[in-house]
Each structure stands twice: as C-alpha cells, then as structure tokens.
C-alpha cells in the first residue's frame, strides 16, 4: 500500500487514534470523489463493528449508485429491485426477528418508485432501519430529476430548473413518515463536516440500538451531495448543499421516542 505520512515517530500502534473499520471490505469504493455515500458506508460499518453486529446483520441494497453496497460492507446483503427494499426487509425481519436488518436507499429508490413500500413498511412499523441518502438527483442513471430535487434546481431532465407548476414540489418523505404511528425515530442529518458526521453516527447508533426494542421503524435521512450530477467539485457541492438544500431539508430530529424526549427535557430543565 503506497502511503504518505506525517511525523513518523508518532506512527506507533499504541498511538492509533482512528482507522477504517474492518467491516469495510478492503477495496476501492466506486463512488465519485467526495460523494457522501462513502462516508455513510463508513459510519454504518463502524457502528456494526462497535456494536458487535457483524454476525447478525442483514442489509438490503437498492438500485442506484449504492447498488453495489454488498461489495463494500462485509455483512450478508440482498440486492432488491428498485424501490422494493422495505418490502424485502419486511420479510427478512419477520422471518429472522433477532437479526439487525437495514435498508440503504437513494432518493429515486425510496421516494419515487418505492414510495408505496416506504410508506407501508413505516405504517406497519416494521422493526427495521431505513437509511435514506437524499442528494436530490438520480446519480447512477446520469443526473436526472428526482422527487426530492428542489425547486429551480437543474438536472438533465429539468435543464431549465425544476418548475413547480409542471413538475411538482420536492417530496418531503421524511416528514411524511414522521407522521405515521409506525415510525419510532425519524431524523435528518448530513455527513459533509466532521461535526455532522459525529451527529449522524450518534443518531444512527441510537437507531440501531432501538431496533432491539421492537417499537417500530427507525428512519434516517442523510442529505448528501452529488458532485457529478450537480456538476460541481466536492467542496463546492457541500457548500451549495448547505446554502440551498438545507433550507428545504432542515437537519435535526423529526420524531423522537417519548422516553428520549423526557430525557432531553429533563436535561434542558437542569441547565
């Protein structure tokens, strides 16, 4: 492995502060440079490792950029037809209830063709984790408009910008599923800065731990970038995302379990 290093005297096993998770397969991700998918994969892999779940995890990958999730995460994975991951995961979890089951989906998969499966799995309160990576565009197929593309945003099928009059508004799936009684924990995060990565990891850790309680669906949206589809550099795309996507998709918890809320309120009162 060809490397460049900092001060060599500090590089000793006892000084190790961070290394990539063993749950990530030792290969190169096929994602574009700077794409948030890689970061989300990393967070998920770290949590699976830290929580000791590698032997009990079954994931469901979508159709879209992350179809090849199974090349990157060293856990059992099923690849699902476009949009159908929540249905696939429903059966897996109901037939093997003690496994950790998650879906990993993009915005076309979850909010276009898979709208029905998303809503109904959440409505039934299936005890799964749905990870929704929303970059407001169809990356894999070449940058077309998605249901989550924001008004005015250009894409290959909205070259003059999304026209709300003829193309509808951006679809706020996360807000919709938060209204369903079947969801237990719903949150929206991002992974474009270290602080946000930490927050996402914290939220995802909670969601994974909640699955053991069998209290319903946990749903994490990660607003992310698509440098290729948006035709920007990775750094530009993150800046653009902050300025333009976040107003439409504000970060934070949309639905928190009652027990969590009480805890938060108590600590607020104590401050």
């Amino acid at each position: 492995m060809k490397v460049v290093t900092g001060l060599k005297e500090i590089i000793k096993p006892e000084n190790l502060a961070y290394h990539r998770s063993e749950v990530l397969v030792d290969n190169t991700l096929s994602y574009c440079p700077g794409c948030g998918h890689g970061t989300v994969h990393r967070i998920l892999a770290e949590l699976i490792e830290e929580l000791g779940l590698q032997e009990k995890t079954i994931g469901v990958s979508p159709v879209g950029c992350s179809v090849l999730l199974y090349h990157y995460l060293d856990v059992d994975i099923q690849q699902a037809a476009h949009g159908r991951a929540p249905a696939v995961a429903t059966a897996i979890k109901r037939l093997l209830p003690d496994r950790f089951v998650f879906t990993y989906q993009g915005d076309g998969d979850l909010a276009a063709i898979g709208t029905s499966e998303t809503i109904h799995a959440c409505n039934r309160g299936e005890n799964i984790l749905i990870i929704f990576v929303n970059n407001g565009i169809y990356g894999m197929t070449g940058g077309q408009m998605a249901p989550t593309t924001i008004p005015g945003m250009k894409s290959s099928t909205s070259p003059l910008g999304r026209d709300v009059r003829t193309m509808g508004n951006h679809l706020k799936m996360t807000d919709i599923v938060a209204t369903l009684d079947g969801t237990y924990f719903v949150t929206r995060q991002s992974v474009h800065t270290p602080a946000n990565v930490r927050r996402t990891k914290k939220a995802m850790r909670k969601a994974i731990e909640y699955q053991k309680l069998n209290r319903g669906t946990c749903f994490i949206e990660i607003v992310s970038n698509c440098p290729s589809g948006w035709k920007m550099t990775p750094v530009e795309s993150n800046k653009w995302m902050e300025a333009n996507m976040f107003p439409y998709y504000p970060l934070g918890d949309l639905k928190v379990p009652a027990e969590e809320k009480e805890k938060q309120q108590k600590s607020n009162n104590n401050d």
Partner: protein
Amino acid sequence: MEKELRLMKGNEAIAEAAIRAGADGYFSYPITPQSEILEYLMEANPFERTGMVVLQAESEIAAINMVYGGAGCGKKVMTSSSSPGISLKQEGISYIAGAELPCLIVNVARGGPGLGTIQPAQSDYFQSVKGGGHGDYHLIVLAPASVQEMADFVELGFDLAFKYRNPVLILSDGAIGQMMEKVYLKPQKQRSTELLEWATTGKGKREERNIITSLDLDPDGQEDFNHRLQAKYAEIQKNEVRYEEFQCDDADYLLVAYGTSARVCQKSVQIAREHGIKAGLLRPITLFPFPSVRIKELGERVKGILSVEMSCGQMVEDVMLAVGCKVPVKHFGRMGGIVTTPDEVVEQLKTIFSGGK
C-alpha cells in the same frame, strides 16, 4: 401417518396445504378469484401453530418482493394472485429466478387481457411458460386439475423449488380455485430451522458474507451465469416432466389439455368413444418442463391432435413444436372466461378432423 379428509375449496386447500408443508411465510394482496387463500390463512392464524408469517402486503409488487426477501434467507415462502396481479409481479419473479432463489407462486388465472373478468381462463400460458418477466429464465410450472392437486402441488412445488433453487409456479384457474371437492391433507410437517449455507441469515461464523443479487456487470460473468441457468433448465427438462394419460393407447385422435380443460376433455373422450371416435387425452401436469417427448410419441400414432385451452391458443404452439408438423394440430377454446362443455369439444373434434365420424 394419517391423512385428514376434508371437503374444501381449491383456494382453501392451497392455504391449508401451505401450513402443513411447513411454509415459513405467505405474502399476498387480495384479488378475485383467489382472495380466499389469504382469508383462510388469516383466519387460521398459523403463526400461533407453527410460527408461519402471514402478511397482507400493500400490493402484489410488495408481496413478491417480500417473497424475494424471505427466499433470500433460505425460507419456504410463497405468494398467490390472479392474472393481472401476476403481471405486476413479473419483475420480482425475474429477480427471484436471476438470484436463483426458491419460492412458490400461485396464479389462479382469470380472463384477460387487462382487468378482463373474474371468470376462469387459461390465457396466462405464455406468461407462465415462455417468459412473463424479462431475461432468459424459466419457472417450473405445475398445472393442477383438482382440489387434491392444489393441495399436493404446494409441497411438491416447495420441494422442486429448493431442489433446483428456482421459483415454481402453480398455474390454476378460477374454477378450480372456487370448486369444492374431497381432499386428503397430509399431517403437519415441522418448519425447518436449518440455516442454508448460501442464504443471508447473518454472517455468523462464516468466513465469507453471502450476497443475494442478480446483477453482474461483467459480460463474461453474466454469460457464464446464463449458461448455468440453461444447464439447470436442461436438468429440469430431463428429470421433472409429469403428465397423465387417459385412454391414449389405442387413440386415433389426441386431446391435449390441462387444468379445468382437462377435466372437460376427460368427459369428451368418453362421449367421443360412445360415438365411435377413439379419442384419448394427454394431460400435462408440468407445463414447464413440457411433455414434448411423450406428445411426439403419441403424435406418431394418431390422425390429429386437438389442443383444448380456455384461450385463443397458447399451449397449442408447444404441441405443434413437439410433433414438428408430422400430424395436424388444431386448437379449440372458449375465451372471455367461458368454460367449454364436453359436447362442444366432441363437436369440434368431429368438425376439425372431418375424417372422423
């Protein structure tokens, strides 16, 4: 081991047989004429009895994808629907075949195309045997002609599905689904708890993770895989052909029919013989693999073959292929959900092959 005798509807027989065969899961959406399967299972609540999961899905598409998920875990899972719903499932079925997963799909066929009618039909033969979904794959197709076979083919279907890691389709129709007949039910089989070595059940102590996918972007890899699939279907063709013959040994004219049409034709054979026409019936039980070899053999001994199907003529093409133009092959069938009568078939036999009396 005692078998239990009951009077049941075809649809109910499938449901009860599924429980007794140790099925792990059933996922479906209501559609006439097969909703009784789901209703029976919901009423029976086998989750209490055997742990079998029964779930009404939000659509036929969701249901077939639930089957995919369960099958990927190596579980005995099934779904049922009727013609328009089976159309919806085609992508999922292609995925299941492409990922080499075992499962059982039941089509209680009705008239089409489109929303069609709720009356029985046999116009899904092409869909079942020639494709349905995209890509080079085949389903093993079983065609019951009685309530007993509806029950028996559930266990047979699961056995074949797991033997070949291939989806199996029970192609029935609305008449058999709704009729009531005596049926002998086998005793309850234990649900298996075995974790299959190829299935996604959590990595456990395995060295390698299991991946269930039908995607291979490498052309050589994809071609190799398709060759393997074709070899599998050749095995199935060699080993799993099933059919029943009725008075074929001295027949001058052969009727080929399956399902409800076969029941009608059995009577037609009797009536024809009363009129001095030596007719016989070959009833395919497997539509894939098709009993081409046997039909060819019989074709060499008869003056004409009549394929009787409740459709515009779909299976007739496979009969023609089997005999290779050596003997006249014709089709007769009512459409629109109409079940032909035995007399009608005999009339057709006389008219079409006017050499007969």
